[in-house]
């Protein structure tokens, strides 16, 4: 591979062209001054403060993505058009292969993205009021859906909390689907080897969370989930047992959001660049947007496409939690997407041919 730092610099500058920087400034202003949290969410207690801060943080990152995703997708799709409108004449006589050029442009794109997203991370923390979320998301457990039809119904589950976290909190999202009437009282009791009973109770009218603290290194957790009063049917849906750690580091939430946004934007730009090497600019933009929309709309949890991680991170940030950093699978997914661009450029033999 013949790596050219000059080409990387050129690509970065093209992604940060004056129109792009103007749009970036507008998005940053909107992120800084548009109210994101409704007044009802602003309160004095810890929960309202977390939620209000989370909504602010989420709003800022949505602004960042509303600028970065379309801009970088479009610019990445335009690269091959520039190559076919004259750049190919001097790129084609250089010692770099087409694959090298594709990789250099993508690297330039990644650097430019790193630069434009950084102020949003700072703005997000400012809009969150400077308070770090009290809880960091560690993962979720895939349990079978449990439905409690009548008073006294009970279900027993075995769960495995993530290991290594200092203090854990388990949160069960329980719903009373379609209940327009009175709610139902639900109790969850957990126990593990060498621990006293840990319990939580809640009155469920539509959907609510039952939270309980779990000591560190508990191993297997026995959970008893019981309905203790009359009312509507209650369900603990599959994959709705969430695990959180307490008191994450101050920079945990902005760093996680920054990395998720960066990886997702790079992956989308890489797909756009790859498709544009073979098809038209419009096709490339459509293909990249479709992949992003799929990740947003369809629940592909195990998919390593970085868009999935970004969607979940934004959801968690909006709920007042700190998302966890991208997993290895997400990094690998982004790496795979990044390989598409140089591969597509290398395989396209007529990349430097002039458009007539």
């Amino acid at each position, binding site marked *: 591979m*013949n790596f*050219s730092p*000059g*080409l990387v610099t*050129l690509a970065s*500058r*093209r992604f940060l*062209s004056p129109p792009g920087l103007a749009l970036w400034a507008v998005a940053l202003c909107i992120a800084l001054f548009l109210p994101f949290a409704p007044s009802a969410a602003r309160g004095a207690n810890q929960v309202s403060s977390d939620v209000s801060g989370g909504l602010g943080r989420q709003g800022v990152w949505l602004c960042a993505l509303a600028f970065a995703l379309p801009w970088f997708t479009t610019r990445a799709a335009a690269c091959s058009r520039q190559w076919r*409108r*004259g*750049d*190919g*004449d*001097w*790129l*084609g*006589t*250089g*010692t*770099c*292969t087409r694959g090298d050029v594709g990789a250099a442009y993508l690297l330039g794109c990644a650097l430019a993205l790193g630069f434009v997203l950084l102020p949003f991370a700072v703005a997000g923390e400012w809009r969150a009021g400077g308070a770090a979320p009290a809880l960091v998301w560690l993962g979720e457990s895939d349990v079978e859906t449990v439905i409690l039809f009548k008073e006294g119904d009970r279900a027993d589950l075995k769960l495995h909390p993530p290991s290594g976290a200092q203090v854990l909190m388990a949160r069960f999202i329980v719903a009373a689907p379609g209940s327009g009437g009175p709610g139902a009282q639900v109790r969850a009791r957990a126990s593990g080897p060498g621990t006293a009973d840990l319990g939580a109770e809640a009155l469920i009218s539509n959907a609510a969370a039952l939270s309980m603290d779990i000591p560190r290194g508990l191993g297997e957790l026995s959970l008893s989930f019981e309905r203790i009063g009359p009312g509507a049917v209650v369900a603990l849906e599959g994959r709705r047992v969430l695990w959180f750690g307490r008191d994450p580091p101050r920079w945990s939430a902005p760093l996680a959001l920054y990395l998720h946004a960066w990886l997702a934007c790079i992956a989308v730009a890489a797909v756009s660049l790859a498709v544009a090497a073979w098809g038209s600019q419009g096709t490339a933009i459509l293909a990249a947007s479709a992949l992003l929309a799929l990740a947003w709309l369809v629940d592909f949890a195990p998919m390593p496409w970085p868009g999935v991680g970004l969607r979940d991170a934004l959801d968690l940030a909006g709920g007042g939690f700190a998302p966890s950093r991208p997993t290895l699978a997400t990094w690998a997914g982004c790496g795979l997407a990044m390989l598409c661009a140089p591969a597509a450029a290398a395989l396209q*033999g*007529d990349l*430097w*041919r*002039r458009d*007539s």
Partner: protein
Amino acid sequence: MATMNSPAIQARGLEQSYRSGLLWRARTVLADIHIELARGGRLGLVGPNGSGKSTLLRLIAGVERPSRGELILFGGAYKGGELRRRIGFLPEDASFPRELRAQETMELLASLRGVPRSAARERSRELLSAVGLERAAATTLGRFSRGMLRRFGLAQAMVHEPELILLDEPTAGLDAQGFAVFDELLARARARGASLVIASHVLTDLQTHCDRLIVLHEGGAAASGAPADLLGSEQGTTMLEVEGLDSAGLEAVRETVEARGGHLLMRGPSTAALRALYRRLSQ
């Protein structure tokens, strides 16, 4: 087997066609081209617009791949990047990156052609100065005039001291000083034994710098030979540039031409006069 005596260019049955339109029909822009250019040789390509000159240069430069035929450079001694390091190419309407400064772009292009980074800076400075752009080294190319871009294009084609130089309409848009710069650069290239291919509509460029011409017509080679044979005898028209004569002397030249049955077609100050005027003004 490739030797130092292998020709710089050997093309046999070269053809280039493009597919386009709804029915994906092939359109042939170059057909059955045979070229052999010895190392140090100077070849001119001439022909009307659309005759395939630029396409042929792009094929030789390696920007495009031929649809058919065989193209061997330097006897096939070099491949990939090694080969590209030996070729300098000035495209017809070179779109160099408008975002970068002249010095930056020259360094980038030099490094892309295999010039080490430390040497690239020095070579870039030297070449920009040679084409009279040293004061514009910190200006972005987007702010260059057409003539400045042409000078820049000439410089970038030579920045890595290539063994084969391909120039597409090198003097289009150049002013009188630019012509002098062009002549100077080509003289330097010739001195180090570089081979040269020029596509141009300017016959004086071809007559001055080429020892053989190929006339392209509708994608094929219609004729080839020495410039004097092809242009002089074919049209019976010769351009004279005269220096140091007053009007009486020029009148005597006209009378001599007419006495021998010829006609003086044009009379006026030469480009050399314009060059001298520029020199005076810059002093």
